[in-house]
Every structure is written in C-alpha cells, then in structure tokens.
C-alpha cells in the first residue's frame, strides 16, 4: 500500500514538472499543430530553421559565453569572502551574510532602472562585460551562500593542522579548502550558471541592441500582442537541455565523490 502511494506521488510530481517541458518539445518539433490535439499534426524542424535564420547562433554564443564568465567571476569573488566569513570568528558575520542577500530581495526592475541611468551616463548600454557584471548581481549571492556553507562545515582544526605542518595560508586554501569546498562550489556554479542563462529583465533593459541573449531573443516570439509558440519553444529547448544536462552531471559525479569526504563536522 505504502509502495503504491509513494510511486503514485512520484508519478504526479514527474508529470507536474515534465508536462510543460513535454509540451515545449512538441511545439519545437512540430511543423503543423494547432495545439488542440494531444500530439502535433506533423513533426519537423520548421521552427528551428526559422529561429536560426532570425539569429539564434549569435544568441547562443552570447548566452553560453556570458554564463561561464558569470560563474567564474562570482566564484573568484565568493571564495575569499566565504573563506573569511565561513571559517573565521567575524563579529558582524550574520550582517555580512545578509548583505550578500540584498540583491535577491531588491526586484530586478528596481535595480535595473537604477543601473540604467548609471550605464547610460557611462556609455555601457549594450556592453558585453557590463552585462556580465549585471548578471553577477543575482548570481553571486547564490554562489557565495553555497560556498560559504561548505567552508562553514569544515572543522577549523583541519586548517590549523595544515598550517602547523608547514603550509602557508594560500597553500592551505589551495590544497585543503578548495578540494573540500568543491561540492559547494559546483552547486553554486549551477545556480549562478542558470541564473545567468535565464536572466531576462536586466539584459533586456541594459543589453539592447547588441546583447540579445536567449531569453531576450525568445521574448521576440512571445512579447507584444502575438505569440508564436513554435519558434519560442525551439529557443526554449536550448535553455532546458543544458540545465537538464547539468543536473544529470551533478547527480552522477558530485554526490559520491566529494560529499562523502567533505569534512562535515560530526
């Protein structure tokens, strides 16, 4: 009885999560479909051809180069900060942690309007690195929290042992902490990556005309008065597939390898 109800619940959850995804795939790979039947009338690549001709390639390159840069830079900022706040007795620890969350609380439209006036003055509208920076506003808090939690879970005497055995502070971070915080770094990277990949509002506001990332590109087909589900779904496929792939990689490689020996305090 219990087994049946758990599998029933699992099936319902999977359906809720995957039904929209399934419909997206149907739209993306249909040539003729009015959305009134369960399956497309005719399958084909028409929508893909349409979006490729409209400039999908450039958006793909933009999205998938900006996201890794956002991950890289937010990691570079987060690791030292998380090391100090996560392992040292800092007086205003909680305050600093909460400061890092402010970007997530302020609505993007509010910060967007603020940044818009600054960027306009500085002539940074449509600038590639300026968009990377803007994505970092939302991505860094995730990266920081995740890496900091990893640092916090490591027994402080492990650092002391390394120091006493002859490692400088830098070598301790590289040889001891970095391998131990890898799980946090990876999950932080996943969050930061998908944040950047999915960021829409700020990129739309500050990136045009040059920086048309996938979500902004997609907006052409769903914005305004008319919706064009075929092309929009074709673009969505490029947002969904990498995310699913990352989740798969995380499941496969991270859990067993690192989490087991991560020096979690007893």
């Amino acid at each position: 009885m219990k087994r049946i109800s758990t599998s029933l619940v699992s099936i319902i959850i999977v359906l809720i999560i995957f039904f929209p995804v399934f419909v997206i795939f149907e739209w993306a790979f249909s040539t003729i479909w009015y959305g009134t039947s369960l399956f497309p009338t005719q399958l084909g690549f028409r929508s893909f051809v349409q979006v490729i001709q409209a400039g999908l390639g450039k958006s793909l390159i933009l999205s998938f180069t900006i996201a890794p840069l956002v991950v890289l830079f937010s990691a570079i900022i987060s690791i030292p900060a998380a090391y100090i706040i996560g392992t040292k007795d800092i007086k205003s620890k909680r305050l600093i942690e909460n400061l890092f969350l402010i970007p997530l609380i302020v609505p993007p439209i509010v910060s967007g309007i603020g940044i818009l006036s600054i960027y306009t003055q500085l002539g940074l509208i449509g600038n590639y690195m300026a968009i990377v920076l803007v994505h970092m506003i939302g991505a860094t808090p995730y990266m920081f929290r995740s890496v900091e939690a990893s640092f916090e879970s490591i027994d402080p005497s492990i650092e002391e042992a390394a120091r006493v055995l002859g490692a400088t502070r830098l070598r301790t971070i590289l040889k001891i902490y970095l391998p131990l915080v890898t799980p946090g770094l990876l999950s932080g990277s996943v969050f930061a990556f998908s944040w950047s990949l999915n960021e829409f509002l700020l990129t739309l506001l500050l990136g045009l005309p040059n920086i048309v990332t996938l979500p902004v590109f997609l907006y052409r087909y769903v914005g305004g008065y008319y919706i064009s589900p075929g092309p929009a779904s074709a673009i969505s496929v490029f947002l969904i597939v990498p995310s699913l792939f990352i989740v798969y990689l995380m499941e496969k490689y991270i859990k067993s390898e690192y989490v087991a020996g991560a020096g979690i305090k007893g």
Partner: protein
Amino acid sequence: MSTILIKNLKKYYGKVLASSIEALEIKDGEFFTLLGPSGCGKTTTLRMIAGLISPDEGKILIDGKDITNFPPERRNLTMVFQNFALFPHMNVFDNVAFGLRMRHMTEKEINIRVMEMLKMLRIEELANRRIEQISGGQQQRVGVARAIAPHPSVVLFDEPLSNLDAKLREEVRYELKELQRKVNITAVYVTHDQAEAMTLSDRIAIMQAGIIIQIGNPKEVYFTPANAFVASFIGGTNFIDGDVEKEISQDRVLFRSNDGLLIEARKGMINNYDSKVLLVRPEAVELRRSSENGIKGTIESKLYLGGSLEYRIRIGKNSTLKTFSPSVNDVGDVNSNVTVVIKDAVVIKR
C-alpha cells in the same frame, strides 16, 4: 630536538587571563606535559607555542631564536589534535606525506619516510585507505605519524587520546611512549588525565587558572606536591589539619594535628608563612592489629572493591584516614579497633 624557552607569556580573553607563564624552559628531547583541570589554560598555552594564537605579552624562543611573531608554518613544529584533524579528501599516505610535501622533499624520499612512519605505528597496510574507512585508534595513529614524519623540532599534543575509548587509550599511550623513546622528539603534551601525564612525562607542569603551580618530574609532583590542589589533582589524598610543632632535621618535621596527634613528616616545599596541612597518601597508611604499637583508630566504614578493600579509619575527633588493603588481608569489621602506621607524610601548603 630543540629547547623551548618561554618568558612572561600572557594571553587574555576579554578580562579572563587564560594563560600566564612567567618562565618555562623545555629541554631538548624532553617529554613535557601541561596538566590541569578543564579551562585552566593548557590549550591556550599550547596554541601560543604553535603560533595558532598570538600572545598579548611575552616571548617564545626555540633554540634561542625568538619565534613569537612567526606564523605557524615557519616554526618547524607540528601538532597532534584531539579530534585528529586529518585531511578528509586525502588517503592515509597523503595525510602523512603532507608535511613532507610542504618541505619540498622528493617523491622518492617522501615514499621512504612515509612508509617508515606507517611501519613504526603499525598501520602500513592502511596506506591507501580513505580516512573515513579507518577506526578512531587508527586515525590517531595517522595523526601521530603525520606529525612526526617531517622530523620537526617540537611536536605538540593537545589531548590526543581523549577521543579514544579507555582500552584503546591505554594502548596508544603505551605506543606513544615507545615512539618518543625511539625517535627522541621534544614533546609538549596537554592532558587533564593524571595517569597519562604520570606514565608519559619526563616533567609535568600543573596548571590552575592560567598559571603554572608546580613543575617537576612525576615522582616529585606526586610525593611532594606544592599545595593541596596539586595533591588532590594527582592521586588519592588524606588531609590532616594542624601545624608544624618543631623541626627534627633539615627536611623532617614533627606535625601536631588539631586532635593532638604527633606525626613525623617530610617538610616538603613549605615556608614559614604558609597555612599548612598534612598530606597522607592512602597507600602510605598501613593497618595493623590493635595490639601493635602506633596510632589508635577505629574502622568507620569498609567497602569491598573486589580485589581490595577501602577503609575509612577515624583517628581523632576531626580526622579520618582513607586507605586500601588487599581483600585477602582483612583487618577487621566496622567499629573494631586497629593500629595505624603512617609510613610517609608530607607537610604542604593548604
């Protein structure tokens, strides 16, 4: 192998004086123990020597060199931790090799040295195991091997056995002693376990509230404790109130108890101004048949402990003596009279 010299070292936590060491010299190759109750400042002192916390005042010299402001990695000392503090992402071999790699030894030298250490601690078959795949006792052996492998000038131990169960503790304690003899390291060892301190140490410093009360070899601190605190921290005690009646010789006195008993005793470390008390260790009390000569007493209580009997003997209105005797040597029941012979007593500061 090295000497450590500490001068006027002080560390405050807020207003609490956590450790204050006026002068201390730890000799080359010595096994030196800081012993004392919880919170007396042992760890604080050790961590200042390690460079993990910096003192508010004072100096630390190793082999004559002032290292007070050196970071831990430049002091050429290592440490064994209470919770082992092994690197969880490395196997046993790499843990032991860590200090050698930091010293830029070649992989060939490292291989030889690590296997030698693992063999010495009888864990060579564990070289490729992950840390979470070995037992607590084995983990602490890895901790010891890791600390000794780089041949540091000093090895610091902070209660390395307290996370092991009683039987294992004794086993590893014995191994530590053997190891220290073999490799002849200068060791500073922190513990609150007096048995550990007695069996391992060349000299013991007994600490209380941040201050060293007495330094001496195990025999000295046991037989001639500086005061009642030291006496009761190390071993069983009987205290008899009274005062020195007169000096018999340079190191012996006659002690008069408040009940009027006269007992000959060693003079200990007292001076004239101290308020005094007589210390009689339970094993220095011998019980005889009441017909024999000596102090007269009555058995107030008697407990069977299996192999031995614990007696409490009343020898005056205000004084009783606790003592043990083998259960095969029963001298009488409660309320019967016995003769007490005190074989050794020492006058100490209250």
